[in-house]
Protein backbone atom coordinates (compact mmCIF):
# COMPACT_ATOMS: atom_id res chain seq x y z
CA UNK A 1 0.00 0.00 0.00
CA UNK A 2 1.55 3.29 -1.14
CA UNK A 3 1.12 7.07 -1.20
CA UNK A 4 2.30 9.46 -3.89
CA UNK A 5 4.22 12.37 -2.34
CA UNK A 6 4.53 15.60 -4.34
CA UNK A 7 7.29 17.90 -3.12
CA UNK A 8 9.66 20.57 -4.39
CA UNK A 9 12.31 17.87 -4.80
CA UNK A 10 9.91 15.49 -6.55
CA UNK A 11 7.36 17.62 -8.43
CA UNK A 12 6.11 14.60 -10.37
CA UNK A 13 5.71 12.61 -7.17
CA UNK A 14 7.49 9.70 -5.59
CA UNK A 15 5.78 6.51 -4.44
CA UNK A 16 6.34 5.79 -0.76
CA UNK A 17 5.11 2.86 1.34
CA UNK A 18 2.51 3.78 3.96
CA UNK A 19 3.88 3.76 7.48
CA UNK A 20 2.35 1.54 10.15
CA UNK A 21 0.59 4.62 11.54
CA UNK A 22 -0.81 5.45 8.10
CA UNK A 23 -1.95 1.87 7.59
CA UNK A 24 -3.74 2.02 10.95
CA UNK A 25 -5.34 5.34 9.96
CA UNK A 26 -6.43 3.81 6.66
CA UNK A 27 -8.26 1.05 8.52
CA UNK A 28 -10.02 3.69 10.62
CA UNK A 29 -10.84 5.60 7.42
CA UNK A 30 -12.41 2.57 5.76
CA UNK A 31 -14.57 1.96 8.83
CA UNK A 32 -15.55 5.64 8.95
CA UNK A 33 -16.43 5.68 5.23
CA UNK A 34 -18.67 2.63 5.73
CA UNK A 35 -20.39 4.41 8.65
CA UNK A 36 -21.08 7.42 6.42
CA UNK A 37 -22.47 5.16 3.72
CA UNK A 38 -24.73 3.44 6.24
CA UNK A 39 -26.08 6.80 7.43
CA UNK A 40 -27.02 7.57 3.83
CA UNK A 41 -28.55 4.11 3.27
CA UNK A 42 -30.62 4.39 6.47
CA UNK A 43 -31.89 7.83 5.46
CA UNK A 44 -32.83 6.59 1.99
CA UNK A 45 -34.71 3.70 3.59
CA UNK A 46 -36.67 6.09 5.81
CA UNK A 47 -37.56 8.20 2.77
CA UNK A 48 -38.69 5.13 0.83
CA UNK A 49 -40.82 4.08 3.80
CA UNK A 50 -42.40 7.54 4.03
CA UNK A 51 -43.13 7.54 0.28
CA UNK A 52 -44.81 4.14 0.53
CA UNK A 53 -47.00 5.33 3.41
CA UNK A 54 -47.99 8.46 1.48
CA UNK A 55 -48.77 6.36 -1.59
CA UNK A 56 -50.92 4.10 0.58
CA UNK A 57 -52.92 7.19 1.51
CA UNK A 58 -53.69 7.68 -2.18
CA UNK A 59 -51.11 10.26 -3.25
CA UNK A 60 -49.56 9.79 -6.69
CA UNK A 61 -45.79 9.69 -7.15
CA UNK A 62 -45.90 13.16 -8.77
CA UNK A 63 -47.94 14.55 -5.88
CA UNK A 64 -45.50 13.13 -3.33
CA UNK A 65 -42.50 14.58 -5.21
CA UNK A 66 -44.05 18.01 -5.80
CA UNK A 67 -45.40 18.36 -2.27
CA UNK A 68 -42.70 16.77 -0.14
CA UNK A 69 -39.71 16.72 -2.48
CA UNK A 70 -39.36 12.95 -2.05
Amino acid at each position, binding site marked *: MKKLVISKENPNGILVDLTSEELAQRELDLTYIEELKQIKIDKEARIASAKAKLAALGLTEAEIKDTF*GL
Partner: protein
Amino acid sequence: MSTLEVNKITPQGVATEVTLGDSGDTFTIPSGVTLTNNGTANNFSDCVLISSTSMSGTATAVNITSGIDSTYTFYRFYYINVSAAGAGNTLFMRISSDGGSSFISSGYKHTGFEANYTGGSTSSAVQGATGFVQLGNNIPNYGDNTTEGACGYVEFYTPSVSRKPVFTGLSSQFSDNGDADAYYWGGYYGTATTFDAIQIGASNNIYGTLKLYGYK
Protein backbone atom coordinates in the same frame (compact mmCIF):
# COMPACT_ATOMS: atom_id res chain seq x y z
CA MET B 1 15.38 55.69 -30.51
CA SER B 2 17.79 52.91 -31.44
CA THR B 3 17.16 49.28 -32.31
CA LEU B 4 19.06 46.35 -30.82
CA GLU B 5 19.08 43.40 -33.21
CA VAL B 6 20.32 40.12 -31.73
CA ASN B 7 19.20 36.49 -31.89
CA LYS B 8 19.78 35.63 -28.25
CA ILE B 9 20.29 37.37 -24.91
CA THR B 10 22.35 35.45 -22.35
CA PRO B 11 23.47 36.45 -18.82
CA GLN B 12 27.06 37.56 -18.72
CA GLY B 13 29.71 35.29 -17.23
CA VAL B 14 28.51 33.00 -14.43
CA ALA B 15 25.35 35.05 -13.82
CA THR B 16 22.01 33.32 -14.50
CA GLU B 17 19.63 36.30 -14.54
CA VAL B 18 18.94 39.19 -16.88
CA THR B 19 16.99 42.26 -15.73
CA LEU B 20 14.94 44.36 -18.12
CA GLY B 21 14.70 48.08 -17.28
CA ASP B 22 14.02 49.73 -13.95
CA SER B 23 10.95 50.41 -11.83
CA GLY B 24 8.54 52.62 -13.75
CA ASP B 25 9.69 51.51 -17.19
CA THR B 26 7.17 50.08 -19.66
CA PHE B 27 7.83 47.39 -22.25
CA THR B 28 5.21 47.12 -25.00
CA ILE B 29 4.44 44.07 -27.11
CA PRO B 30 2.95 45.45 -30.35
CA SER B 31 -0.17 44.06 -32.02
CA GLY B 32 0.59 40.99 -34.12
CA VAL B 33 3.61 39.95 -32.06
CA THR B 34 3.60 36.43 -30.63
CA LEU B 35 5.27 35.73 -27.28
CA THR B 36 5.81 31.98 -26.86
CA ASN B 37 6.56 30.42 -23.49
CA ASN B 38 8.19 26.99 -23.52
CA GLY B 39 9.48 27.32 -19.99
CA THR B 40 8.07 28.64 -16.75
CA ALA B 41 6.49 32.09 -16.62
CA ASN B 42 6.13 33.36 -13.06
CA ASN B 43 3.81 36.16 -11.98
CA PHE B 44 2.38 36.85 -15.46
CA SER B 45 -1.10 35.96 -14.25
CA ASP B 46 -3.16 36.08 -11.07
CA CYS B 47 -3.63 32.32 -11.55
CA VAL B 48 -0.60 30.03 -11.50
CA LEU B 49 -0.38 26.26 -11.94
CA ILE B 50 1.49 24.98 -8.89
CA SER B 51 1.45 21.24 -9.50
CA SER B 52 0.01 18.71 -11.91
CA THR B 53 -0.15 15.08 -10.91
CA SER B 54 -1.16 12.00 -12.85
CA MET B 55 -2.39 9.05 -10.81
CA SER B 56 -2.28 5.60 -12.35
CA GLY B 57 -3.70 3.36 -9.67
CA THR B 58 -0.50 2.88 -7.69
CA ALA B 59 -1.42 4.78 -4.52
CA THR B 60 -4.39 5.25 -2.19
CA ALA B 61 -3.32 8.79 -1.28
CA VAL B 62 -1.58 11.75 -2.88
CA ASN B 63 0.22 14.17 -0.55
CA ILE B 64 0.97 17.62 -1.97
CA THR B 65 3.64 19.03 0.33
CA SER B 66 4.95 22.07 -1.53
CA GLY B 67 3.54 25.25 -3.03
CA ILE B 68 0.94 25.90 -0.31
CA ASP B 69 2.08 29.00 1.57
CA SER B 70 1.53 32.75 1.76
CA THR B 71 2.20 33.32 -1.96
CA TYR B 72 -1.49 33.15 -2.93
CA THR B 73 -4.70 34.35 -1.36
CA PHE B 74 -6.64 31.25 -2.32
CA TYR B 75 -6.04 27.94 -4.00
CA ARG B 76 -8.20 25.87 -6.27
CA PHE B 77 -7.51 22.19 -6.52
CA TYR B 78 -9.01 20.34 -9.52
CA TYR B 79 -9.48 16.63 -9.75
CA ILE B 80 -10.09 15.44 -13.27
CA ASN B 81 -11.55 12.13 -14.47
CA VAL B 82 -10.86 10.53 -11.11
CA SER B 83 -11.84 6.97 -10.36
CA ALA B 84 -10.62 4.29 -8.02
CA ALA B 85 -10.16 0.57 -7.99
CA GLY B 86 -13.16 -1.26 -6.58
CA ALA B 87 -16.76 -0.33 -5.91
CA GLY B 88 -18.24 2.40 -3.77
CA ASN B 89 -15.16 4.55 -3.28
CA THR B 90 -15.14 7.78 -1.31
CA LEU B 91 -12.72 10.54 -2.31
CA PHE B 92 -11.59 12.93 0.43
CA MET B 93 -9.14 15.69 1.35
CA ARG B 94 -7.25 16.45 4.56
CA ILE B 95 -4.85 19.18 5.63
CA SER B 96 -1.46 19.11 7.32
CA SER B 97 0.23 21.70 9.51
CA ASP B 98 3.62 20.00 9.51
CA GLY B 99 4.51 19.88 5.85
CA GLY B 100 2.79 16.57 5.25
CA SER B 101 4.42 14.56 8.03
CA SER B 102 0.90 13.96 9.36
CA PHE B 103 -2.60 14.85 8.23
CA ILE B 104 -5.46 15.93 10.47
CA SER B 105 -8.10 13.20 10.60
CA SER B 106 -10.80 14.69 12.85
CA GLY B 107 -12.39 18.01 13.72
CA TYR B 108 -13.74 18.95 10.30
CA LYS B 109 -17.32 20.10 9.85
CA HIS B 110 -18.17 19.27 6.29
CA THR B 111 -21.60 19.34 4.69
CA GLY B 112 -22.70 18.86 1.12
CA PHE B 113 -25.82 18.61 -1.01
CA GLU B 114 -25.93 15.73 -3.44
CA ALA B 115 -28.41 15.71 -6.33
CA ASN B 116 -28.86 12.46 -8.19
CA TYR B 117 -30.56 11.63 -11.50
CA THR B 118 -30.96 8.06 -12.67
CA GLY B 119 -32.28 9.05 -16.07
CA GLY B 120 -35.83 8.45 -14.87
CA SER B 121 -36.06 9.91 -11.39
CA THR B 122 -34.28 12.37 -9.15
CA SER B 123 -33.31 12.31 -5.51
CA SER B 124 -31.20 14.37 -3.19
CA ALA B 125 -29.39 14.03 0.11
CA VAL B 126 -27.61 16.28 2.56
CA GLN B 127 -24.40 14.75 3.83
CA GLY B 128 -22.02 15.49 6.66
CA ALA B 129 -18.57 14.36 7.75
CA THR B 130 -16.10 15.18 10.51
CA GLY B 131 -13.14 13.01 9.51
CA PHE B 132 -12.31 14.79 6.25
CA VAL B 133 -13.51 17.08 3.50
CA GLN B 134 -15.58 14.70 1.37
CA LEU B 135 -14.95 15.38 -2.31
CA GLY B 136 -17.19 12.61 -3.58
CA ASN B 137 -18.75 9.32 -2.69
CA ASN B 138 -19.57 6.30 -4.81
CA ILE B 139 -17.08 7.55 -7.41
CA PRO B 140 -16.58 5.39 -10.51
CA ASN B 141 -14.92 2.02 -10.28
CA TYR B 142 -11.90 2.02 -12.60
CA GLY B 143 -12.22 -1.74 -12.88
CA ASP B 144 -15.71 -1.46 -14.39
CA ASN B 145 -14.98 1.12 -17.05
CA THR B 146 -11.88 3.23 -17.55
CA THR B 147 -13.83 5.97 -19.36
CA GLU B 148 -15.90 7.02 -16.33
CA GLY B 149 -14.76 9.55 -13.78
CA ALA B 150 -15.50 12.24 -11.25
CA CYS B 151 -14.51 15.85 -11.96
CA GLY B 152 -14.59 18.76 -9.58
CA TYR B 153 -12.66 21.18 -7.45
CA VAL B 154 -12.11 22.26 -3.90
CA GLU B 155 -11.04 25.75 -2.86
CA PHE B 156 -9.17 26.79 0.27
CA TYR B 157 -8.11 30.21 1.45
CA THR B 158 -5.14 31.97 3.12
CA PRO B 159 -3.49 28.74 4.34
CA SER B 160 -0.65 30.65 6.01
CA VAL B 161 -3.04 32.68 8.18
CA SER B 162 -4.06 31.01 11.44
CA ARG B 163 -7.82 30.77 11.09
CA LYS B 164 -10.38 27.98 11.05
CA PRO B 165 -9.74 26.89 7.44
CA VAL B 166 -12.79 27.05 5.17
CA PHE B 167 -13.32 24.80 2.15
CA THR B 168 -15.75 25.16 -0.74
CA GLY B 169 -16.27 23.09 -3.83
CA LEU B 170 -18.38 21.06 -6.17
CA SER B 171 -18.15 17.94 -8.26
CA SER B 172 -20.04 16.03 -10.87
CA GLN B 173 -19.65 12.42 -11.74
CA PHE B 174 -20.82 9.31 -13.47
CA SER B 175 -21.51 7.45 -10.24
CA ASP B 176 -20.49 3.86 -9.71
CA ASN B 177 -24.08 2.72 -10.36
CA GLY B 178 -24.43 4.79 -13.54
CA ASP B 179 -26.33 7.81 -12.25
CA ALA B 180 -25.48 11.47 -12.72
CA ASP B 181 -24.38 12.96 -9.41
CA ALA B 182 -23.85 16.65 -8.69
CA TYR B 183 -22.36 17.42 -5.28
CA TYR B 184 -21.98 20.90 -3.79
CA TRP B 185 -20.26 21.31 -0.48
CA GLY B 186 -18.70 23.58 2.08
CA GLY B 187 -17.26 23.37 5.54
CA TYR B 188 -14.33 24.09 7.75
CA TYR B 189 -11.77 22.63 10.12
CA GLY B 190 -12.79 23.56 13.65
CA THR B 191 -9.47 24.73 15.11
CA ALA B 192 -7.63 27.85 14.04
CA THR B 193 -4.46 26.73 12.27
CA THR B 194 -2.18 27.34 9.36
CA PHE B 195 -1.60 24.52 6.92
CA ASP B 196 1.00 23.82 4.27
CA ALA B 197 0.10 20.47 2.73
CA ILE B 198 -2.99 18.60 1.59
CA GLN B 199 -3.77 14.95 1.12
CA ILE B 200 -6.19 13.46 -1.38
CA GLY B 201 -7.25 9.99 -0.35
CA ALA B 202 -9.67 7.30 -1.40
CA SER B 203 -10.87 3.91 -0.27
CA ASN B 204 -8.65 2.25 -2.89
CA ASN B 205 -5.93 3.11 -5.40
CA ILE B 206 -6.71 6.26 -7.38
CA TYR B 207 -6.66 7.06 -11.09
CA GLY B 208 -6.92 10.45 -12.79
CA THR B 209 -5.32 13.88 -12.78
CA LEU B 210 -4.86 16.45 -10.02
CA LYS B 211 -4.02 20.10 -10.67
CA LEU B 212 -3.37 22.69 -7.97
CA TYR B 213 -3.63 26.39 -8.85
CA GLY B 214 -2.84 29.44 -6.77
CA TYR B 215 -4.72 32.73 -7.13
CA LYS B 216 -3.44 36.13 -6.02
